[in-house]
């Protein structure tokens, strides 16, 4: 599942749903909703992939995750252009390979870890997302977008569901950021033509 579906949150959820006996059709629908945020990642990365081959973009899409997105886009913004290693290294070496190996290890040894919370494993994902977010904050606009994304995400999660909340935060947070008059208009720091 780690190699084929390659989606951390969706895999976690799917395993829980399978264990609870939920129908596969429902699991697939929930996976679709849970992973809709990748459309936002994909759209945000698109300007940096201008001029790359269709095959490269198609393969890159399969390896697009929360982590590879955050690491790659921070790198692209830092260097001001697309950088192949800046995408493929985080996508493969720091995400796909460790995730697959860790999944395998979990299948083999998971029962030995009786209570993962005792080892702080549950805080790794949110801390990583927050830490990666910090790397993308370069001005007031990003800060406001992040704050609004978090607030909207939590509010909508409580009102509807966490899956919808994350998508709502990602969709509406940037609108709040755009309300900030931007000296640092992000388009100005966008990619140079390849």
């Amino acid at each position, binding site marked *: 599942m780690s190699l084929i579906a390659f989606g951390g949150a969706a895999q976690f959820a799917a395993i829980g749903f399978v264990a609870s006996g939920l129908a596969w059709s429902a699991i697939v629908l929930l996976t679709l909703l849970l992973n809709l945020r990748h459309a936002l990642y994909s759209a945000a990365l698109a300007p940096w992939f201008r001029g*790359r081959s269709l095959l490269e973009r198609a393969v890159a899409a399969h390896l697009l995750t929360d982590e590879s997105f955050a690491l790659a886009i921070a790198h692209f913004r830092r260097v001001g252009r697309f950088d192949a290693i800046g995408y493929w290294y985080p996508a493969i070496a720091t995400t796909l390979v460790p995730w697959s190996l860790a999944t395998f290890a979990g299948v083999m040894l998971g029962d030995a870890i009786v209570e993962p919370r*005792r080892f*702080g494993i549950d805080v790794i994902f*949110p801390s*990583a997302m927050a830490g990666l977010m910090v790397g993308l904050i370069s001005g007031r606009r990003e800060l406001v977008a992040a704050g609004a994304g978090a607030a909207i995400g939590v509010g909508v999660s409580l009102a509807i569901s966490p899956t919808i909340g994350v998508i709502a935060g990602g969709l509406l947070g940037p609108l709040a950021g755009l309300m900030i008059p931007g000296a640092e208009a992000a388009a100005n720091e966008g990619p140079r033509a390849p």
Partner: protein
Amino acid sequence: MSTDLVPLAVLMFAVTYPSRAIGLLAAPAVDRLPRRALEYLQLVGPAILAALAAVNVMVTTVDGRPSFTVGLAWLSVIACIAIVAWRRNLFLGLGAAVAIAIVGRLGGLP
């Protein structure tokens, strides 16, 4: 090891890949987007990562109902943010977050 879930994984791929590909495969059309849309796309990253982190630590689902939660994970995430902002080192931030969680739970915190 069972392979019963491989067909499910294939179905999950089938509904996930289009989301991942839609923007990247349309990359050549990005040139035609208005400037405001490009500015919006630049802000998607911080917003969605913040939403993921916040929802993960502030919302728990019990019996299908989401509820607001306060716990040690907040402190871990805040410490991680502070350390990454200060030292620009994600691994240091993650190490601190995990250490806080371990020590706090040894002390009986939720």
